[in-house]
C-alpha cells in the first residue's frame, strides 16, 4: 500500500474537525486528492534537493484515536514549560485542556484549539485559513490541510497587547504516532504578542509531526514568534510558518532547532508597505540528524525591510541545510534586505549545504547576502589550550560561543534559559557549564 493510500484509509474513519463547514470540506477533499497523487515531496523537486524524505514512505505513522492520552512522563512536559506564560498544549496532535493555561487572558483575546474555534468562530477562520500558505503548496502542506486534527487558534483584536508570552506546546507520546496540526495566529491592527511554539516528545520515540502555522500580522501590529524544535532523536518533523504582514507590521521570528532525526522548517513572510521582518535561526545538528531550514521573503510593496541571521552547526554524521530566498517584486522599490548565514562544520562526516538566493525585480533596492562555512579557528582553540583548558572543552566553549550569540537574541528570559540548557546538553562532549556561565 502506498503511504498516500495508507493515510487515506486511516483517516476515513476519523472524525476530523470542521466537517460541518462546506468550504473546509472542499479544501480537505482537494488537498487529499493532491496528496494521493503527489505524495510527500521528492528530492527531484528543486526546493527538496537536499532533503530526502523517502524514509517517511517506508514508515507508516498512525494518528491517535479519540480523546487525548494522558501524559505519563509529565516531567518532560514540565521542563519545556515557560514560567509566567499562557499555554496551549497539544498531546499527539489533540488539544489537552488539562495541561493548558489560559486564565487571565485580556478580554477579547482568543487562545484556544482550532477544533473548538471551528465550532465557535467558523467565519473568522474561513477568512484566515489557507490564506498565507504558498499557492503551489507541496505534499506536506496538502497533507496538513487534508488531515489536521487540531492546532492553536490565537486571535488578538485591535490594540490588544499580551504582556506575557503565549506558549503552544506540541508533545508526542506514542510510538509511530502521527500529529497533524494547523495553527492560526492573527493580530489585528496595533496588537502585539509573543508566541512560542515548542515541539518535543517522550524518550526516544519515533513519530511524525507535521504542523503548519499561518500568521497574519495586521497594520502596525507586532508579533514576536519563536519556534523551539526539540523533537526526539528518532522523531520526524515538518513545520511550516507562513506569515503575511500588512502595512507597517513587524514580524520577528526566531527558529531554534536541536532535535529530530529528520526535521525541516519553512519560514515564509510576505511584506506589505513599510513592513519589517526579522528572521533569526540556529540549528545544532548532532548524531545522524538532518536539519533543514528554508526561508522565503516576498517584498511585495515598497519600503520593506528584512534582516535574516542564521547560524548552523553540524557535528558527528549530521547534515545541516539552509536555503534562504529573498524575492523583491517589481513594485517593491526602496526595499532593504540582508541575509547572513554562517555555519560551523565540526566533523569529517558532517555536511553543510547552503543555498542563499536573491530574486530581484526592482532597481532601487539594497539587497545583500553572505554565507560562510568553516571550522573552529585553530588559533582560538590553541589560545584556550595554552590557558590550561583541555581541547574538547576548548572546542565546546568556542562552539557554544558561536551559537550563544543567537540565543542571546531571545527576549523572554525563561525561554532564553530553556534554549541555553538545550544547547548545552546537545553539545558534543564534556560539561562546560562552569562558574563563568
Amino acid at each position: 500500500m502506498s503511504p498516500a493510500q495508507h493515510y487515506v484509509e486511516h483517516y476515513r474513519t476519523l472524525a476530523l474537525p470542521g466537517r460541518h463547514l462546506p468550504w473546509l470540506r472542499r479544501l480537505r477533499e482537494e488537498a487529499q486528492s493532491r496528496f494521493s497523487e503527489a505524495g510527500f515531496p521528492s528530492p527531484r523537486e528543486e526546493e527538496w534537493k537536499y532533503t530526502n524524505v523517502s524514509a517517511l514512505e517506508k514508515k507508516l505513522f498512525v494518528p491517535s484515536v479519540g480523546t487525548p492520552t494522558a501524559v505519563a512522563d509529565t516531567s518532560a512536559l514540565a521542563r519545556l514549560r515557560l514560567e509566567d506564560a499562557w499555554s496551549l498544549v497539544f498531546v499527539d496532535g489533540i488539544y489537552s485542556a488539562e495541561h493548558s493555561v489560559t486564565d487571565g487572558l485580556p478580554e477579547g483575546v482568543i487562545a484556544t484549539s482550532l477544533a473548538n474555534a471551528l465550532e465557535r468562530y467558523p467565519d473568522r477562520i474561513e477568512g484566515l485559513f489557507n490564506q498565507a500558505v504558498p499557492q503551489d503548496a507541496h505534499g506536506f502542506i496538502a497533507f496538513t490541510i487534508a488531515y489536521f486534527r487540531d492546532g492553536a487558534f490565537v486571535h488578538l483584536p485591535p490594540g490588544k497587547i499580551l504582556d506575557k508570552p503565549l506558549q503552544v506546546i506540541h508533545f508526542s507520546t506514542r510510538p509511530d504516532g502521527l500529529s497533524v496540526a494547523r495553527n492560526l495566529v492573527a493580530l489585528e491592527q496595533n496588537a502585539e504578542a509573543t508566541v512560542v511554539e515548542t515541539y518535543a516528545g517522550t524518550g526516544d520515540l519515533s513519530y511524525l509531526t507535521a504542523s503548519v502555522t499561518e500568521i497574519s500580522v495586521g497594520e502596525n501590529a507586532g508579533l514576536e514568534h519563536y519556534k523551539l524544535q526539540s523533537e526526539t532523536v528518532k522523531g520526524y518533523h515538518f513545520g511550516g510558518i507562513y506569515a503575511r504582514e500588512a502595512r507597517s507590521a513587524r514580524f520577528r521570528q526566531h527558529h531554534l532547532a536541536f532535535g529530530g532525526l529528520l526535521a525541516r522548517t519553512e519560514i515564509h513572510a510576505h511584506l506589505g508597505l513599510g513592513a519589517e521582518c526579522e528572521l533569526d535561526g540556529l540549528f545544532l545538528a548532532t548524531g545522524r540528524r538532518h536539519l533543514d531550514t528554508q526561508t522565503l521573503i516576498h517584498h511585495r510593496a515598497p519600503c520593506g525591510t528584512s534582516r535574516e541571521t542564521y547560524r548552523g552547526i553540524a557535528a558527528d554524521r549530521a547534515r545541516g541545510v539552509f536555503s534562504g530566498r529573498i524575492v523583491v517584486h517589481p513594485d517593491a522599490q526602496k526595499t532593504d534586505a540582508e541575509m547572513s548565514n554562517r555555519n560551523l562544520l565540526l566533523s569529517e562526516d558532517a555536511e553543510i549545504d547552503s543555498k542563499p538566493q536573491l530574486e530581484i525585480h526592482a532597481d532601487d533596492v539594497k539587497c545583500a547576502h553572505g554565507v560562510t562555512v568553516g571550522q573552529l579557528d585553530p588559533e582560538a582553540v590553541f589560545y584556550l589550550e595554552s590557558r590550561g583548558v583541555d581541547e574538547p572543552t576548548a572546542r565546546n566553549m568556542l562552539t557554544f560561543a558561536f551559537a550563544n550569540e543567537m540565543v542571546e537574541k531571545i527576549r523572554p528570559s525563561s525561554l532564553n534559559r530553556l534554549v541555553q540548557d538545550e544547547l548545552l546538553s546537545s553539545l558534543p562532549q564534556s560539561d562546560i557549564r562552569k562558574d563563568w556561565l
Partner: protein
Amino acid sequence: MSATAKTLDKLIKKEYAPGFVTDLEADTLPPGLNEDVIRAISAKKNEPEFMLEWRLEAFRHWLSMEEPKWAFVHYGPIDYQAISYYSAPKTREPPKSLDEVDPKLLETYNKLGIPLYEQERLAGVAIDAVFDSVSVATTFKEKLAAAGVIFCSMSEAIQNHPDLVKQYLGSVVPPGDNFFAALNSAVFSDGSFVYIPKGVRCPMELSTYFRINAAKTGQFERTLIIAEESSYVSYLEGCTAPMRDENQLHAAVVELVALDNAEIKYSTVQNWYPGDEEGRGGIYNFVTKRGDCRGRKSKISWTQVETGSAITWKYPSCILRGDESVGEFYSVAVTNHCQQADTGTKMIHLGKNTKSTIISKGISAGRAQNSYRGLVKILKSAENARNYTQCDSLLIGDRCGAHTFPYIEVKQPTAQVEHEATTSKISEDQLFFCMQRGLSAEDAVSMIVNGFCKQVFKELPMEFAVEAQALLGISLEGSVG
C-alpha cells in the same frame, strides 16, 4: 527627459553593429536530425570509424534525455528537426594560405574588427577562424609548430592526431553529460584543438573567432585544450552572429585538461546577436564548458564577458582534482532589452589544498533577466580547500531583474567557504559626484560601470580588454534609471 535618461535611451537603442549577412554559397545539409544526418556529417568530414560510433552513441543517449527546465529563462519549445546541422562555405580547394581564402569572407572578419592580415602583422595572436562550421584559415601555424604546439581545427585533429582525440575527447564533458552536451557530441561540426606539450609555454595567445552566418543553422562547435605537464596557454574566444528574426541555437562544448603544474587561461567575449528590442530573434547560447585540473598544482582560469545572445545558459566549471590545484572564474554578464542570462560556474573540490575564486558581475537593463547560478562543492577528500565567491548585480531601470542562486555544499570541516552577494543600482551620489567634477552623464556612468567590472576586466588579455570595454559601451553605458 533628463540628460542622463536621453543618453541612456540613445545607447540602449544603438543597433547591433556586426548584424550583417555575408552572401556566400554554402554547402548545407537540409534541416533535420537523425542517424543519417550524423552519418552524413561524419562522412563529409571524412572521420575515422571511432568518431562515428562516438557520435551515434551520444545521439542515442540524447534521444533518451529531456531538455533541462531548471534555469531561470523562458523560451518557446525548440524544434530540433527544423535546424540544419551542417553548413560550410563552398570552396573549390581547401585554402593553403590566407591569399586563397574567399575575399568576401575576409571582409566579414574585417567588419568584425578582426582583420587576419592585421592580426598577423601585429604579432601575438594566432587565429583559427571558424566560419559557420569549418575552419577557414589558420595563421601562425609554423611558429607554433616549432614550439611543438598543436593548434588546429577539430576536424584536422581528428584526421592528424586521432590518438590524442581518442584519449581526451569527452573525458571532461562525457557525451551524455547533459542534454545540450549530448546533442553537441552527436552533431558537432568543428571547433579548435590545442595541445601544449610538456614544459612549453605557448609563445603567443591563441584565439578563435566563431561566427554563425547561414540562416537556420545551429552552431555546434567543440573545443578541446590539453596542457601537458608544466605548460601554459592563454586561449581567447570571441563570438558574433548576424541579425535574424528567428532564433538560432548554439550549443557548444569546451573541454580543458590541465596536467601537473600546467595552467590554462580561457577568455571569452561573447557577443552573439541578442535579438531586437522586442525580444525577436537572437541566439540561444546553451554551452557546456568544463575544465579538469587533473594534475597537482594545475590551474584553470575562466574569464568571460557575456554581452550577447537572447538566452545564455552557461556554467564554465572547474574540477579541482589535483592537490593544490586552482580554479578561477571571472565573469561580466550584461543583459539588455529582453535578453535572459542564467550563467555562473561550478567549482568541485576533490584535491587537498585546492583553491577557487569566483567573481561575478551581472548587469541588467531594460526588461532583461540576469541570473548567477553557481555551485561550490567541497568533497570529503578536499582538506583545507578554500573558496571565495563574490557576486554583484547592478540594475538599470525598474523592469529588469537580477537574481543570485548559489549552491554551497561542504563535506570537509577544514574547508573554508565564503560567499557574498549584493544587488543595487548606480547611486545618485556617485553620479552626482562625477558630474559635478565636469564629467558628462554618459562618461560618469561609463566610468562607474567600468569600475564595477574592473576586477574582471583586469583578468582579460590586453587584446580583449579593449574589445570588452567597447562592447560594454555599446550594451550598457548610461546605467541610470
